[in-house]
């Protein structure tokens, strides 16, 4: 057992204006690996991630971080469209270390080291806003990685990227995992799930319908919804 894990989510609910976006989510995650969260639009994937990193206050249920209080910088998140400050690539990565109380020189040194690992070495002085979509996403991953989080939440980071940029992001995600960070990633990309994931959480209508190792999920989905989703026949926002 490691700090913050196993992560146990019990009966997690989020119902703005009476509509159940999370309708009693139950989930348990161990301390290692990459878990892919799959499901149709409106299934509650992004809301689950936002709840885990504290952006959304749930209406009910519990989140147990291995019986401990999660460290302040233990959980971080990368969004589908990451923000880029009007500053250099280096400044944008070093920004994440500002709340850590680290001096400017050390922030820049650590940021430069991580930028090299995501393939943006030599681009430190460039304006972050002029990076391509794939480069922006790599910068966002570097910004999360530089804080050495225990849990990294990724909300469809490759949704608008071409195949080569997607492959590069997947390489970086694997490296972050190798560094000891637990990863929970929402995606619609089934191929990505098979390439990247250790296990799959399948959600629909605000509930976890299935949690299984990747091979088993794709070979023998336990639920009819999952089978339809894999076959591409699950209607958008279908309620079960």
């Amino acid at each position: 057992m490691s700090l913050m894990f196993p992560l146990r989510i019990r009966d997690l609910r989020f119902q703005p204006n009476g509509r159940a976006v999370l309708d009693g989510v139950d989930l348990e995650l161990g301390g290692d690996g990459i878990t892919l969260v799959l499901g149709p639009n409106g299934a509650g994937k992004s809301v689950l991630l936002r709840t885990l990193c504290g952006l959304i206050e749930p209406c009910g249920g519990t989140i147990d971080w291995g019986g401990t209080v999660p460290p302040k910088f233990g959980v971080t998140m990368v969004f589908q469209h990451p923000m880029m400050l009007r500053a250099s690539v280096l400044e944008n990565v070093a920004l994440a270390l500002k709340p850590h109380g680290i001096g400017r020189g050390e922030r820049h040194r650590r940021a430069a080291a991580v930028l090299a690992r995501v393939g943006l070495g030599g681009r430190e002085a460039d304006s972050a806003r002029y990076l391509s979509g794939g480069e922006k996403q790599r910068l966002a991953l570097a910004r999360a990685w530089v804080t050495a989080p225990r849990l990294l939440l990724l909300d469809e980071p490759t949704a608008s990227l071409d195949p080569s940029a997607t492959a590069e992001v997947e390489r970086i995600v694997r490296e972050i995992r190798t560094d000891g960070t637990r990863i929970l990633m929402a995606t619609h990309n089934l191929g990505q799930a098979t390439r990247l994931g250790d296990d799959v959480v399948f959600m629909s209508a605000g509930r976890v319908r299935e949690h299984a190792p990747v091979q088993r999920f794709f070979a023998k989905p336990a639920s009819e919804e999952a089978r339809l989703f894999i076959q591409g026949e699950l209607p958008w926002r279908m309620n079960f």
Partner: protein
Amino acid sequence: MVSERRLSKRRRSAILPPMSLFAATFSEAFSLLATFDDRVAEIVALSLRVSGGAVLIGMLFGLPLGACLAIGNFPGKHTLSVLMNGLMGAPSVVVGVIVYLLLSRSGPLGDYGLLYTPAAMVFAQSLLVIPLMAAITRQVIEDAWQRYAEELRVMRFSWWQSVTTLLYDCRHSLVVAVLAGLGRAMSEVGAVMIVGGNIDRATRVMTTTIALETSKGDLPLAIALGVVLVVVILALNAFAFAMRGWAMRRYG
């Protein structure tokens, strides 16, 4: 010299048709500018010092105040926002009278002896500029906050760190707030007249000189100073516009 000029002008106005009088006034104003004397230079320099000082104080207080209003979540936030918006159009003479009461010998700040000094004028203009800059800043930062809030919260930014980060990120857009403050300060006449007293070679600035010379009938000098005022404001705006353009091309 001045009275002679005024007499000749009165005589001319009696015999010249209106359009010719208009052209003659401007012609005389431009010849005054061509022989830019020390007194005019002194007035221009004091105007820039007073308005520049007020804008600096406005930046120091107005920008963070606007950002705090945009990001902060505290009781009375909306009331304060409405108050700031309302104070943007506060009549300068009213602000002048309030500052006069504060700085007069029997007022709470009377012991400092600031009344009828440039410091009093800076104080009065700052009170006019701060709400204007704060209100514009609030709008700019609020838009940015909507885009950045989630990521800054995920990175565990404190409230104050968010304020400073967004002020830095919106620095090019906030030039508008600074220019608006500068325009308000430089064109203001009521407050500086009341708290400065329009004392020759001490607290006389361009706007108060223009008002005085117009009432005396010395229109060429008033026009000449008006031209300087407009040129200074245009030059500062052009410089800020060019800097903003460069920065936007550089950082996106």
